[in-house]
């Protein structure tokens, strides 16, 4: 996934994200600090103070206000970005729906952190999984390099479909660890993102409009139906923007899913974000032992790439789906539930089980990754397994 002959920088995930924001040079950033996402806007605020960007930076009094200010600014046609995590995202919750229903392409960094309670600051996906039905495009990244490039692609995707988009990176694991990031030139970023062409501009006094009117029994449903269509359109746009980016900059990012050693695989694991890196290592080790196991990394959760998953899993006998969040519905996490639903229509349905792991930042070592593969193998062989197994939790 390396960019060829590019400038290489040693950056943490947060630094990489802030650096992408600097190159994007948005019109407005409204933000409130929260661990582990604080650095993103802190570093960006320094860019503002140093005059390296032209952004209007709005230091608000809460995340609810941050997203509200983003909505107001974006409705004027401005390019708007922000960043948050966990409780901050929860506090934004009602405004997330306003942003998507007004079709405002706000791009936000979410550094995945467990939601309270009990209070915790470390990585899991309960925060963004809690906003999965808010009408935002959700991109989950594996490392700092992917996060950096996904933000730049995210601007183009969001502004083409007129939907807000969040790029997530695993709290501390990616946000605070330093990696090599291969960056684009400022000019390249500007040329790729172009200018925003807004659906409307609330400050256009020559063409007055009403934004956010009461929308009752007779129209609300039609507007929700439009959002579904926008999400369908987002699938086309994500595919074409990622392809264009790869072609232009010599990268090889997958649009929705990244199959890893799936060619002749008989059974497989589906994982997201940084855990996919550990799982690739485990798949390599098991392959050395002759196991026909593969991995699929899910990169886009909203819109849900059910067609791609059906295609990649159509000949697979058993699948284990990893969730770094639990739906507390007694049948596992959202990735498991939705993937199982997506594969229901396959001619030959695979056996499936869910794994909940890494909650509250619980470490996910290679031994646990191998254990997951062994459990999926047991499922394939018809041995008794639980529908959902909890990895790394003390009994």
């Amino acid at each position, binding site marked *: 996934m390396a960019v060829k002959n590019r400038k290489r920088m040693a950056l943490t995930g947060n630094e990489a994200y802030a650096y992408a924001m600097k190159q994007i040079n948005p019109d407005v950033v409204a933000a409130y600090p929260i661990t582990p996402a604080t650095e993103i806007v802190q570093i960006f605020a320094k860019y503002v103070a140093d005059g390296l960007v032209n952004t209007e930076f709005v230091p608000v009094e809460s995340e609810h206000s941050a997203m509200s200010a983003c909505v107001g600014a974006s409705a004027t046609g401005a390019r708007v970005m922000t960043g948050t995590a966990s409780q901050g995202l929860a506090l934004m919750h009602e405004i997330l729906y306003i942003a998507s*229903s*007004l*079709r*405002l392409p706000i791009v936000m960094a979410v550094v995945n952190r467990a939601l309270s309670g009990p209070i915790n600051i470390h990585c899991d996906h309960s925060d963004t999984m809690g906003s999965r039905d808010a009408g935002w495009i959700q991109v989950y990244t594996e490392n700092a390099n992917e996060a950096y490039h996904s933000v730049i692609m995210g601007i183009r995707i969001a502004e083409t479909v*007129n939907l807000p988009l969040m790029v997530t990176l695993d709290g501390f694991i990616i946000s605070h660890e330093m990696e090599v990031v291969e960056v684009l030139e400022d000019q390249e970023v500007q040329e790729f993102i172009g200018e925003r062409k807004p*659906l*409307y501009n609330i400050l256009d006094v020559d*063409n*007055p*409009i*009403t*934004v*956010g*009117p009461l*929308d009752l029994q*007779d*129209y609300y449903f*039609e*507007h929700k*139906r*439009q959002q579904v*269509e*926008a999400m369908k359109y987002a699938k086309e746009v994500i595919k074409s923007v990622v392809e264009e980016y790869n072609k232009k900059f010599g990268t090889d990012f997958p649009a929705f899913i990244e199959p890893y050693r799936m060619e002749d695989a008989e059974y497989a694991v589906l994982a997201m974000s940084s855990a996919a890196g550990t799982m690739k290592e485990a798949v390599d080790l098991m392959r050395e032992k002759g196991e026909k196991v593969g991995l699929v990394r899910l990169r886009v959760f909203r819109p849900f790439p059910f067609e791609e998953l059906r295609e990649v899993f159509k000949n697979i006998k058993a699948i284990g789906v990893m969730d770094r969040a639990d739906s507390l519905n007694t049948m596992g996490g959202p990735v498991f539930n939705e993937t199982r639903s997506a594969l229901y229509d396959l001619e030959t349905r695979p056996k499936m089980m869910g794994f909940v792991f890494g909650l509250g930042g619980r470490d996910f070592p290679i031994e646990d990754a191998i254990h997951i593969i062994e459990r999926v193998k047991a499922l394939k062989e018809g041995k008794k397994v639980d529908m959902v197994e909890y990895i790394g939790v003390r009994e």
Partner: protein
Amino acid sequence: MKKKGWKELPEGAIIPAAPTSPEFKTGDWRIQKPVWNEDKCVHCLLCWLYCPDSAIKVKDGKVVAFDYEYCKGCGICEQVCPPKIRAIEMVKEEI
């Protein structure tokens, strides 16, 4: 009026025109109707001042009419009309 479907409506639930409130005839909300007695009226204009729907029409400093297309029948005009005058009376709306 045939309502537009999702494929025809503007995206983002915006109303792409202004002003649109005159098109919203709120008079059919009314269950009580103010009846104005021109002979009793002293044209103090309190009703005009308080009417939340700008439904009391004034010309040259005098009340000239009540606009029943917009009057919701809230009765505020009757309440603010001076007690010694009582030029406005709310009566049941006949359909």
